[in-house]
């Protein structure tokens, strides 16, 4: 089955089925659904962001827009929103990691007191290094606590707010926040430990 990011093509109309099958435990369907979402995101995110002002595009808006767009092209409605969002978040993580690798990131360190022209949202080279380490740490965590890894993907990578995550995972917001504290502590400790 050739899945294409082109939504008009044969790939559309199948995503719902794939998601359903994936939910029932079909591993291959899960992989294909993921590929589908990933390809779309890769293709679209860059375009959309170049066209739109980034400040008005919140991460949630990006994923929502994607959700709406994919929903439009499905013959059956995408009912499992949280499943979809989980895939999107994981795809985002993947894209970030790839990009970090391509940049040939260095390890964290160096003089932070450079003339840092754009602070919070811009990733300096050192940041990319951290991203890769975070990814490694997450892969280690996946075995013991996959749910926590999902949370990191949703919040840290995809930028959904705690309220949105709470709604989607059917937890209360305070629990989500606490879990993030734990994830942060865990990841930070791994990052600190990796310092030569």
């Amino acid at each position, binding site marked *: 089955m050739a899945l294409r990011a082109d939504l008009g093509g044969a790939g559309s109309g199948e995503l719902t089925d794939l998601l359903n099958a994936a939910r029932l435990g079909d591993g291959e369907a899960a992989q294909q659904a993921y590929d589908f979402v990933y390809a779309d995101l890769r293709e679209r*995110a*860059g375009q*959309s*962001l*170049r*066209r*739109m*002002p*980034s*400040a*008005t*595009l*919140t*991460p949630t*808006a990006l994923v*929502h*827009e994607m959700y*709406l767009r994919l929903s439009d092209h499905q013959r059956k409605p995408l009912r499992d929103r949280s499943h979809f969002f989980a895939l999107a978040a994981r795809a*985002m993580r993947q*894209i*970030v990691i790839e*990009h*970090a690798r391509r*940049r040939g990131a260095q390890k964290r360190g160096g003089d932070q007191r*450079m*003339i*840092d*022209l*754009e*602070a*919070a*949202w*811009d*990733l*300096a*080279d050192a*940041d990319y290094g*951290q*991203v890769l380490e975070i990814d490694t740490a997450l892969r280690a965590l996946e*075995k*013991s*606590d996959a749910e926590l890894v999902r949370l990191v993907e949703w919040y*840290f*990578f*995809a*930028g*959904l*707010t*705690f309220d949105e995550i709470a709604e989607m995972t059917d937890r209360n917001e305070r629990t989500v*926040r*606490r*879990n993030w*504290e*734990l994830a*942060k*502590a*865990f990841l*930070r*400790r791994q990052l*600190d430990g990796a310092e030569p």
Partner: protein
Amino acid sequence: MSSTRDWSRVKALFISALDLPESERADWVAQQCTDDPDVGDEVVSLLASQRGPHHDLLSRGGGVALAVAASMATKPPSSPAGTHIGPYLILREIGSGGMGRVFLARREDGQYQRQVALKLIREDLTNPELLRRFLLERDTLARLVHPNIATLLDGGIEGNAPYFTMELVEGDPIDVWCDRHRLDVRARVALVIRICDAVHYAHRNLIVHRDIKPTNILVGAAGEPKLLDFGIAKPLDAMPAAGLTQTHGRVMTQEYAAPEQILGEPITTATDIYALGMLLYELLTGHRPYPAAEAGHASWAKAIVEHAPEPLARALRRTGDTDAVIEDLAHRRASSVPRLRRHLRGDLEHIVQRALEKAPEARYATVGALREDLRAHLDGRALAGDSQRYRIFKFLRLHRVAVAGAGLVLLLVAAGIAGVVYQARETARQAQTTSAVKDFLLTLFNASSPEETKGKPPEVRELLDRGTARIEHGLDDQPALKAELEGVLGRIYSQLGLYAQARVLQERAVSALRHFAPASPAAGVAMRQLAETLTEHGELEPAETLARESTDLLQTTGKTDEYIRALIALSVVVERRGDIPVAEQLAERAVATARAPQIEKAVLGDALSAQGMVEWDLRDLPRLEATYREALAIHRAAFGDIDLRVATDRQNLTLALRNLGRYDEALENARANVQIREKILGPTHPDLSRALYTLGTTLYHMARYEEAEPVLRRAVAIARDRFGENHATTATALNNLGLVLMDWHGLDEAEQVFGEALRIDVAQLGPNHSSALSSASNLGDVHARQGKLELAEQELRDVLDRERAADIKDEVFELNRLGDVLRQRGDWHEAVALHREALEQVKTMFAPNTRQAALSHYFLGLALVAGGEDAEAETELRASLDALRALMPPDGAHPYAASTRLALGELLLKRSNTRSEGLRMLSEAAELRERFLGSDDARTREARQVLTRARAQIWQDASAAKPDATH
């Protein structure tokens, strides 16, 4: 770290420990883990990692991927150390970011021995247009020479990538510097005052920085702050409309963005003032103003646009900050927590809040004003007091100035811009124009105090007209400003109901924006507004084209709110053109899109409102009612009770409730609708016409004819006056008036009125449009009642034919009317067939127990009586009464019921066992007619005559039954 089981325990312990005060956590954990100290150690170790402020990637909140995705276009960086860019030798890279990279460089050709910072802009961000503009900017920026601004030295283009060099500044970002040197509040304010000087200087040179934040302000060893990176600033006089500021593709620092930057609205000097407010806030409290965003509960964009800034003093103690952190904050400001808190109340709070106002025009008018207030605070003087602009804005906020609302406020912004431009312009002509615009606007405001404004279009109009003329002749070299003012004035005209003028202005705005900002959201919005005006004006075809163009454009811009509004506008015009299925689709799409959580609720209300109007399905009235009620609730919650959107919802609800037979509720809503519109729009606004005839027809349905007539006459008068003699709305108003006249006291006038309505409908909408057919049908009915049966038959047959040809399923009225005419002409057989057909349609199309059902049963009954089918006739007539009773509880009191009772009564009189019931029916009929139509009405007299005759007959028969004693 071992097993999953252990991890669950660690997790649970960690999370519970967070509930405890920091000092107690380690002990508590130790207590819990006496059985397994390894787990305990793990938890404690994690808790240790969690504590304290960090500056790594994990502390920046969510959404890293977005930043990365934005820079995905970057080609893999090559390392140019040792190479040349222009005449500069690159020494090493010293920074990089979303916009480009910064290098340490040195000029090689003997000039400028010192080292400079060279910023290379990302190639992919540029295009020929931007390159050209960049070169222009370079000249502008080089003009900026100020001790607190990092000087731009040089710039050029290397290959395809622009670069520029600037003074190398070494130092700490201002927040770090302040903390490191433990500057107290006064010293920090003094530092900000110096920044204000620099920004003020830039503004006088028509340059807005647009990206002021701590990392853009470095403080050197001597304590002199320098403002960096005016690289994305643009001179005001070349400022394009909103859309173009974004094609730069720059990833903006979201947390420091001003609301207008988030919303894609014009950037002005006020944007810098907001940033200065943010800077102050952070230097004073160590936090940003939006706790929800800082804590990750809300996105920054949403917080900036919607949340009110937290008071300074309260920001010191944010949830999640430990005591140590708060103490540290105060320590770094050379103060104690209670003293700091005191210092941050009062004037400083006022200054910061004003600088952070969401609406640009509400902030300080100039940086100079902000600086003055800061200085006054340091000197211990009182603040300058609210400037006139601020007063104006606060006043507007307090009293709902209905005339222009946001439009007026925007005009004041324009005045603000005009003011700044005036500052720098030398030419007398320019000065005259812009200050005249400013004066005009202020005069406009002064004339528009709430007491004077409502219902006084002439005076305001005169001012507007003058203003329009001035703008037309004065601002050719500032196309952006001109288009903006035109758009705004257009809106005001439209709100006043002056559609012709609105249209001229809006057309101009659209064509201007099409010319120089064709892909911008502003252009899309302007198109939508013009489309709405055209729709009002009845020009549906061009309106539809424009609305489509608007939706197509806005769909790609990411401004979903505006996209939804455009969809709504499109669905409205498509519905008016008669293509209901497409309109329904559009409305549904609008609602679906609006239900996304990040969309403002009020927009969802608008979408629901539109959907209800379009999806008028009489079979699912409960759902329709629910839709309208939801829209109404949303709008009331967002805007209060006196608001045009609320009025529209009430209007829609009126119609739904009417069809559900809940007339009293419908009437309540109809009255509210009229009241709201009158209050906001004044007594002669064209929209009032529609509201009035909705009220009028509601009263008509309740048979309250005497109240209905004046209301409908007023609706007609307004429509004639504001829309003209040949407008569809005038025709509808006339038609509705005709209904009352026909049923009550003015049959001949009804004939005139329907005739006129028909004429207009045919001319404006075509003879096969449902409105035209409606009027024609009504006219036929009048003729029937006048006894002109042959004419009536002709007319009604014609209508039916047209309806059949147009595949219009609802022929109920025509079938019944024609059937009744035929009965009167003696052809009861065909009459029965027609009435039965009508009943069939009623059953399939409408909810049970509607007026249509009642009427159909009634007419069928009459026809059956004519044909001698008494038993069936009785069934039908009784069914009609039942329907009316259900429709108008408790007893179906309505003139139609009178007619039915008359017919039924006469029928019942024929059988001896139903005589008394029959008599009762006749008596009730007479009573009803008397009540609704008055004693002098011909029909009342008729009923009374029938009653009298019947009584006489019964009396006679009773006497005859007595044995005749004599011969």
